[in-house]
């Protein structure tokens, strides 16, 4: 072949070889996460180079920790990340679906169908699928009942570590947490910024003792025992500067001729800080949080002023407290006259700030903030791994709730939507008289990988169950009177087909649409590649000199 003569510094693979190699790599990735899909999916334990252990069921997390090297497989990892970012849930499904699409496409190409035909067919199928979900399968809920939100959160949680016994509790926590973040800006309408959900992990007790608490729990103790344990009403100052002894800048040298001056210099250093603290206290503040440090020698000024001070508070906490209490973070006290002062309007207000104990940690509770109510989700679990996984699961659930609130459309879960779309696409394929027909039929088949995997993971007879499911959906689409059957999915506990919509297994429609879109896009990207050129790594020039 002529291309043999192409002398590149590296390897070159092309045609069917590269396609098969890419598909194999992607299928391998999907096989790793496959067993973690669904309410009865199993978890993965990952140990990294340092020896940190992660136990998780979340597709995106697993893939991120895998450090995949193969370029095509990397695409799939990115795909999961993308789904995680855009939707927050369904990261496992998207990878499984993409790999299945690729596997089937490769089979088609092997049986002498040109990849461009497959690509065209897949794209057609994807559009039709999304259209069908939007027009027929999705149910709009105008007045979103709380029940629907809880059910959706439950569906997301059911496949996670929290799903077994406590899904009721956690679904409610997730819904409460999201509702509490509701803020309506003038231009954007209602917004639910998930970043303002505050989660605190505390080991000990069982997961069922987790709760959502009114107020903000700040994981920082009082700076000194001599300070009061509670103040009410609280006026909160948020500072972004050091309250340690004022040090001179680099390049400034203190030279003394008289040894007695030493004392005065040291006093001056302390005085400068004392003056600052006094200015803040004079402005009326009785709770002071700073992101930097406070010297022990400065603590007495706070105690004397009957104020609580906490040091080394993280910037994230500061922002949330600022939003809730109406305080403004002060990086500096300088005013426009070149002096230092503290404006009382910078203070935030809350009903009460007091010290509390969670497990063995002392924390500060901020109750009744003036501007916006704020909640803290307290996660309890027997060990660190469990707590981490609980947090990941809950984040997924909150994003599902947010999607529901944003889009107002829901679909039935548990493989229902995949089976319905698959049946529809099969009918759609037979209507087409071109060679794309084959690709669309394969696309339809590929969608069934989700209910199949669900059934296999639940130790049920996948072939049997999926056949039943398809029969039901075929009936629903051919007979207009049986339209309600289109919401049927798998009941994995019983190993039967049931109406999942009525059973409360629901998911946001936008999530499902994105899964199909992203998976198709990723599959097409891999499929379009017919040439892989791997260049050799550059030699280290340092060695060459030797």
């Amino acid at each position, binding site marked *: 072949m002529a291309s043999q003569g192409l002398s590149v510094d590296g390897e070159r693979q092309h045609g069917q070889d590269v396609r098969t190699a890419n598909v194999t790599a992607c299928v391998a990735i999907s096989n790793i996460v496959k067993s973690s899909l669904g309410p009865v999916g199993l978890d993965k334990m990952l140990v990294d180079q340092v020896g940190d252990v992660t136990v998780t069921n979340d597709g995106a997390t697993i893939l991120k920790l895998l450090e995949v090297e193969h370029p095509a497989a990397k695409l799939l990892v990115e795909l999961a990340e993308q789904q995680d970012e855009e939707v927050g849930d369904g990261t496992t499904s998207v990878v499984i679906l993409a790999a299945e699409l690729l596997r089937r496409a490769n089979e088609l190409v092997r049986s002498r169908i040109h990849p461009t035909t497959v690509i*065209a067919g897949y794209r057609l199928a994807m559009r039709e699928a999304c259209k069908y979900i939007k027009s027929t399968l999705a149910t709009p809920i105008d007045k979103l009942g709380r029940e629907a939100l809880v059910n959706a959160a439950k569906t997301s949680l059911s496949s996670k570590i929290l799903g077994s016994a406590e899904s009721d509790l956690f679904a409610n926590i997730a819904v409460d947490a999201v509702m509490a973040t509701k803020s309506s800006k003038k231009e954007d309408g209602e917004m639910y910024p998930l970043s303002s959900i505050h989660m605190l992990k505390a080991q000990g007790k069982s997961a069922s003792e987790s709760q959502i608490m009114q107020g903000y729990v700040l994981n920082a103790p009082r700076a000194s025992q001599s300070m009061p344990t509670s103040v009410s009403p609280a006026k909160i100052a948020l500072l972004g500067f050091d309250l340690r002894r004022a040090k001179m800048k680099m390049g400034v040298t203190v030279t003394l001729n008289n040894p007695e001056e030493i004392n005065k210099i040291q006093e001056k250093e302390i005085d400068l800080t004392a003056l600052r603290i006094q200015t803040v206290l004079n402005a009326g503040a009785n709770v002071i949080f700073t992101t930097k440090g406070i010297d022990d020698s400065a603590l007495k000024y706070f105690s004397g002023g009957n104020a609580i001070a906490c040091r080394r508070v993280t910037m994230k906490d500061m922002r949330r407290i600022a939003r809730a209490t109406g305080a403004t973070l002060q990086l500096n006290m300088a005013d426009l006259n070149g002096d230092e002062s503290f404006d009382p309007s910078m203070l935030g207000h809350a009903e009460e700030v007091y010290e509390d104990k969670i497990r063995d940690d002392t924390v500060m509770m901020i109750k009744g903030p003036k501007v916006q109510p704020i909640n803290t989700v307290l996660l309890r679990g027997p060990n660190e791994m469990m707590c981490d996984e609980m947090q990941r699961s809950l984040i997924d659930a909150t994003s599902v709730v947010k999607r529901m609130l944003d889009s107002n459309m829901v679909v039935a879960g548990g493989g229902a939507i995949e089976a319905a779309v698959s049946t529809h696409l099969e009918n759609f394929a037979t209507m087409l008289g071109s060679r794309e027909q084959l690709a669309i039929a394969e696309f339809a088949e590929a969608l069934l990988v989700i209910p199949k995997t669900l059934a296999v993971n639940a130790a049920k007879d996948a072939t049997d169950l999926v056949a039943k499911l398809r029969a039901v959906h075929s009936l629903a689409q051919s007979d207009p009177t049986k339209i309600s059957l289109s919401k049927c999915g798998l009941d994995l506990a019983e190993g039967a087909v049931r109406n999942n919509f009525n059973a409360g297994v629901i998911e946001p429609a936008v999530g499902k649409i994105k899964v199909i879109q992203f998976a198709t896009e990723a599959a097409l990207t891999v499929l379009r590649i017919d040439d892989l050129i791997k260049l050799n*790594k550059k030699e280290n020039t340092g060695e060459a000199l030797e």
Partner: protein
Amino acid sequence: MDGPASVAAGNGMSKEGDGFLSRVSERAKATRLGNITAARSVADAVRTSLGPRGMDKMVQTETGDVLVTNDGATILEKMNVQHPAAKTLVQLSKAQDIEAGDGTTSVVVICGALLEASLELLEIGIHPTIISECFQIGLDKSMGVLESMSSPVDLENREELVRAASTSLNSKVVAQHASLLAPLSVDAVLSIAGDERQGADLRNIRIVKKLAGTVDETELIPGLLLNQSAESGASGPTRIEKAKIALIQFQLSPPKTDMENSVVVQDYAAMDRILKEERTYILQLVKKIKATGANVLLIQKSILRDAVTDLSLHFLAKVKIMAVTDIERDEIEFISKTLDCVPIASPEALSADKLGKAELVEEVSFGTEKVIKVTGVSTSPDKPKTVSVLLRGSSQMVLDEAERSIHDAMCVVRCLVKKRAMIPGGAAPEMEVSVQLAKLAKQLPGHQGEWIRPRRNSGHTRLDELGPHGAGFRVLQVSVSGSMPRLWRSFLTRWRKTPGSTQSKS
């Protein structure tokens, strides 16, 4: 090329064979063969990526980065080809990229086909100079053919331009977004285009890439986009209406003492003064800026000093000035051109007439990524216009490829601004040239006619390429059977391409 051959002939190594072939040594023949094979293999490598249904290449570079692309020039550049003759083709494709911006794959494929054709001729014993000469005749003729089949373009006719841009975009990875990107590239280029002589300087289009959202959300901003985000540390403003923008090249931080010098404090009272001095110094600067009426500050990056400190941000926030730091040195020119402002190099040079004005400056965030949008810029009409494109994509690979594709599409439009003529795409011109050359070949006396024929065949090669990858012959039929206007191609692109590929035959 004839050099070594004639020397070899002088040495008496030409005893095998008769006719003029005998004067060419075996070695020269082998070299030529080697060169042609290498060049052809380059053409083969990019061949499958041609056309709207072409495939992509995945390249893993020396540093381990992965790249998925459909752009001929990019593939060849990253492939790191080593054979010298093959390198010529790579450069050819690069030249096409610089000159026309698009058609980088076609140029290589045609060149490969020409070389292949010449190989046949060499084998039957025709001297390379004659082949060269005939190719030249063929080239002149094809130029004429292309010129005659082109139709003039009216820049007012936006739809036509969009069609040309779509034709370029259709063969790229981002093809499914062509309906959005094509009008966008046309609008971008047209808004900066001057008259026929000036053309359009693509440097006046700024593409800002953001890794957030999908390509669908790409937008054209008449104004300025900055990749930086507003300094929010001191809760300063992030949205300013009726903005007056100062672009400064000095720093708002206390000057540092030189290495060897130090400030000596001998008295505790002096400590107060030092602290206060820093505050007053910064305060004076901020007040001076405020006095000019500026309410948005763009600060150039400095490697020597901090551009801003907590203290200066604090003051800026107090006087409600929005601060944007880390402006790169090479961005200064574009910014000052866009905003019609003069960069201010020192605090002394501050004055109100150096400020740029805009209706709105605001920070927009997409998830974790942020950009600053400046819209409603008022500029004087004689200044060159600029425009910014906010390109979004879900992964770095998609983003990079989208940038390359949009650049190609813009180049196509730019070509149309320069030379306002178009020809149909989808291999229609190749076919026409081929037919015309065949006619010419019959008319020419002697052997010349014979040798032009292969050149004509090379036109077919391109056609054959589009065929198998175009799902049957649909693409072909569409463009030949009358619906030509659907696939307009920039005339200039083709015009450059043909001489390019003919001349690179050594």
